[in-house]
C-alpha cells in the first residue's frame, strides 16, 4: 500500500483535469441558466456562442502573436479575451435586436424561442466555419507547465509525477474571479438586484419600474462574456474546433439542469458534478487502485468503467437520474 503515490496519481489524472473541466462547464452552464432565468428559454445556440466568442479571441491572439506581443509565461489569449467578449456581445445584441426581441414582444411560448435559437445556432455555426474554418486550431502559447511531472518527481522523490499545466491553473483562477464578480454583481448592485427581481416575478418587477429591455441587455452582455471566457479557457486547455463546442451543449445543459435551471449556484455545482463523473467513470483506475489497495488485492484489469468515447453517456445518465428523482435539480431551480 502506498497512499501518497496513490493520491498523487489520483490528483494528476482525475482531480486536476476534472476541476479544470468542471470550471469550464460551470461557466458555460451559468450562461445557459441566466438566459433561462431572465429570458425564459433554453438557448440551443449557447455552444455556438461560445465558439464564436472564442473564434474572435483566437483571431486576435494570432494577430498579437504575429506582431510579437506576448504575455511572457502566460498565454497571449488572455489579452485577446476582451476582444472576444466585444465580438460576441456585438453579435448576440444584434441577434437579440433582430430575432429574439420580436418574439419577446409577442410573448411567444418558450418552445417557439427554443426553435428560434435552433435557427440562430445554424447561423452562428455557419459563421464560425466560414470565418475561421472547421478544423482544429491551437492558440495556446507561453509556459506549458507550472510543474511538470519530471520536476515534481525530482522535487519529492515520489514514483508518480504530478503535472500542473498553466492552462489548468489559469482556468481555475479565472473561473473563481469571474464567478465572484458575477455573484457580487447579482447580489450587491442595483442592476443585479433588478435582474433577480425580474427573474423571480416579471410582472411585479415591471410594476416597480424595472426596465425590462435594460435587464435583457445586461443579461446578454453577461452571457456573452461568460460564454467567451468559458470558450477561451476550454480552447486553451484542449484546442479550438467549432464542432467540439457545439457538442459541449450536452454536458453544459446537463450541468445546468442537474444544478437546477435558473439557479446560478446550481449551475456551478452541476458543472463539477458532471465533470467529476465524466472523468471518474472514463478513467482507468488500475494505477490508483494499485497503490491504494492492500498488497495482494491489486486489480488485474484496467478498472475502467466506460471507454472515453462514452463520456456523453455519463452526462446523460446523471441528467436522467436527477430528472427522475429530483426534477427541480439539486438546488431549487427557476429563480436567480
Amino acid at each position: 500500500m502506498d497512499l501518497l503515490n496513490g493520491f498523487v496519481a489520483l490528483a494528476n489524472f482525475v482531480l486536476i483535469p476534472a476541476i479544470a473541466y468542471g470550471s469550464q462547464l460551470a461557466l458555460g452552464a451559468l450562461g445557459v441558466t441566466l438566459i433561462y432565468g431572465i429570458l425564459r428559454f433554453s438557448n440551443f445556440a449557447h455552444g455556438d456562442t461560445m465558439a464564436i466568442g472564442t473564434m474572435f479571441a483566437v483571431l486576435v491572439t494570432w494577430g498579437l502573436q504575429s506582431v510579437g506581443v506576448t504575455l511572457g509565461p502566460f498565454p497571449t489569449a488572455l489579452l485577446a479575451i476582451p476582444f472576444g467578449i466585444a465580438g460576441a456581445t456585438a453579435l448576440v445584441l444584434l441577434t437579440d435586436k433582430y430575432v429574439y426581441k420580436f418574439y419577446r414582444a409577442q410573448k411567444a411560448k418558450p418552445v417557439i424561442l427554443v426553435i428560434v435559437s435552433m435557427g440562430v445556432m445554424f447561423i452562428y455555426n455557419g459563421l464560425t466555419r466560414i470565418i475561421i474554418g472547421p478544423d482544429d486550431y491551437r492558440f495556446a502559447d507561453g509556459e506549458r507547465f507550472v510543474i511538470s511531472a519530471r520536476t515534481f518527481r525530482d522535487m519529492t522523490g515520489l514514483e508518480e509525477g504530478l503535472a500542473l499545466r498553466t492552462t489548468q491553473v489559469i482556468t481555475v483562477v479565472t473561473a473563481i474571479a469571474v464567478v465572484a464578480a458575477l455573484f457580487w454583481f447579482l447580489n450587491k448592485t442595483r442592476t443585479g438586484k433588478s435582474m433577480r427581481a425580474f427573474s423571480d416575478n416579471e410582472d411585479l418587477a415591471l410594476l416597480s419600474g424595472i426596465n425590462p429591455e435594460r435587464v435583457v441587455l445586461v443579461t446578454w452582455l453577461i452571457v456573452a462574456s461568460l460564454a467567451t471566457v468559458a470558450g477561451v479557457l476550454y480552447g486553451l486547455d484542449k484546442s479550438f474546433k467549432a464542432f467540439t463546442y457545439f457538442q459541449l451543449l450536452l454536458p453544459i445543459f446537463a450541468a445546468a439542469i442537474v444544478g437546477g435551471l435558473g439557479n446560478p449556484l446550481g449551475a456551478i455545482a452541476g458543472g463539477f458534478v458532471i465533470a467529476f463523473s465524466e472523468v471518474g467513470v472514463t478513467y482507468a483506475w488500475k494505477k490508483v487502485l494499485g497503490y491504494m489497495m492492500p498488497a495482494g488485492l491489486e486489480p488485474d484489469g484496467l478498472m475502467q468503467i466506460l471507454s472515453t468515447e462514452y463520456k456523453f453517456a455519463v452526462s446523460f445518465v446523471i441528467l436522467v437520474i436527477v430528472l427522475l428523482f429530483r426534477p427541480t435539480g439539486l438546488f431549487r431551480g427557476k429563480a436567480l
Partner: protein
Amino acid sequence: MKTVLLFAAVACLILGTGFLQSWNSALLILNMGLISAIMALGVNLQWGLAGLFNVGVMGFVALGGLAVVLVSMPPVSAAWAAGGGGILLGLVLGAATVAAAVLTWTRAAGRLRGWATAAVLLVGLAIYRMVLDPAVEAVEAVDPALAGYLGGLGLPVLLAWPVGGLLAAGAAWIIGKTALGLRSDYLAIATLGIAEIIIAILKNEDWMARGVKNVIGLPRPVPYEVDLQNDPAFVERASGFGLDATTASTLYVKLEYGVLFAIVLIVLLVLAQLALKSPWGRMMRAIRDNETAARAMGKDVTARHLQVFILGSAICGIAGAMMTTLDGQLTPGSYQPLRYTFLIWVMVIVGGSGNNLGAVLGGFLIWFLWVQVEPMGQIVMTAITAGMADGSALKEHLLDSVQHMRLLTMGVILLLVLRLNPRGLLPEK
C-alpha cells in the same frame, strides 16, 4: 390548390436540375428528398400532431442504418464460433441486471432500497463485463481487416426497413418511458443526449457493426449497374432511348430506388393522413392544445404521448434504414446532429408543422436547397472574388468557405419562415 402549386414548383426545381445539370444529380436529389420527406413525416407526427420536442432524430436514423447491417449482411461464422454465444449471454445478463435493479427499486421498501439497488447494479455490471469483454475481444480478433464483427442474418435487405422501424421503436419506448412527462425542454435535452449515445455505441462497439471501420458493400434490393451493362437486352433498350449503357444503368438503378422509396412514402403518408383525420388524431390535437382539459376529459396523456413518440421514431428508423440501403454502406462517423436532426426540423417548420403534406413538401424543398446552395454559393463567391488577385489568401479562404454556406442559409431560412410565416408553407387546417 396552393398545395398542388407548391408541389408542382418543387417538381419543377428538381426537373430543372435534370435539364440544367444532369439527370443523375436530379435523381439523387429526388431519392434523398423522398427519404427526407419520410423523416419529416415522422417528426411532424411527434411535433405537429402531439407537440413533442424530439431532437434525437439522428439516433433513430442511425438505428435504422444498423438494422440494415444486422439483417442483410451474411453472418461471419468464424466470429460466431469465437464469441457469439458469449456476447449473446452477456447482453442477456446486462438486460437482466437492469430488470433486477428496476424490480429491487419498485418492490423493496425502507431505507436500504437505494443501496440494495446500487448493489444489484454493481454486481450485475461486473458479471456482465466479465462475460462480455472476452467474447468481444475474441470476435474483434477474427479477420479484423475484413470482418471483426458478428455479421448479420443474411436476409433480404428490404426486410431491414421494417426491422429498422422496430429497432427505433424499441429505443423510443425506453426513452419515452423515462423522459416523457418531463417539460418540453428537458425532453429535448434528453433526446439530444440519447442520439449522441447511440452514435457513440455504433462507433465503438466494433463487434456489432465494425464501428468506425464501416460496413461496406451492403446487399441491394435493385440490380447492380455492372450486371445491367452486361445484359444485352438492357443495352439494346437503352440505345433505343439514345443512351449509352453506363449512363442508362446508373439512371435505371436510381429510378428503381426512387420507385421503392416513393411506395414507402405514399403508404406512410396515407396512413398518417388517416391517423390525422381519425378520432385518434383529433384526440392528439386536443391533448396538444390543452393538456389539462384533455386530462380532465379522461384521456391518458402520458400513454398517448408515448404512443405517438414511438410511432414517429419508428418512421425515422424506417427512413434511416432506407438511406443506408441507398448508400450501400454504414458509416457511423458521418452522422452529425446538424444534418440529421436539426435539418429535419427545418423541413418540418418550413413545410408547415401539423400538416403531413407540408412536412413532405418541406422535406423535398429543404433537401433541394441543402444540395444546391453549395453550387449557387460557388457562383456567388466566384463573382465576389473575381476582382481579387489570384492566389491571395483571402480569396482562397472565401472560396474554401463556400461549403459552409449551407448551414448559414438554413439558419436564415428557418428564422425568416418563423418570423414571416410561422405556420409554414402549408399551414395546418
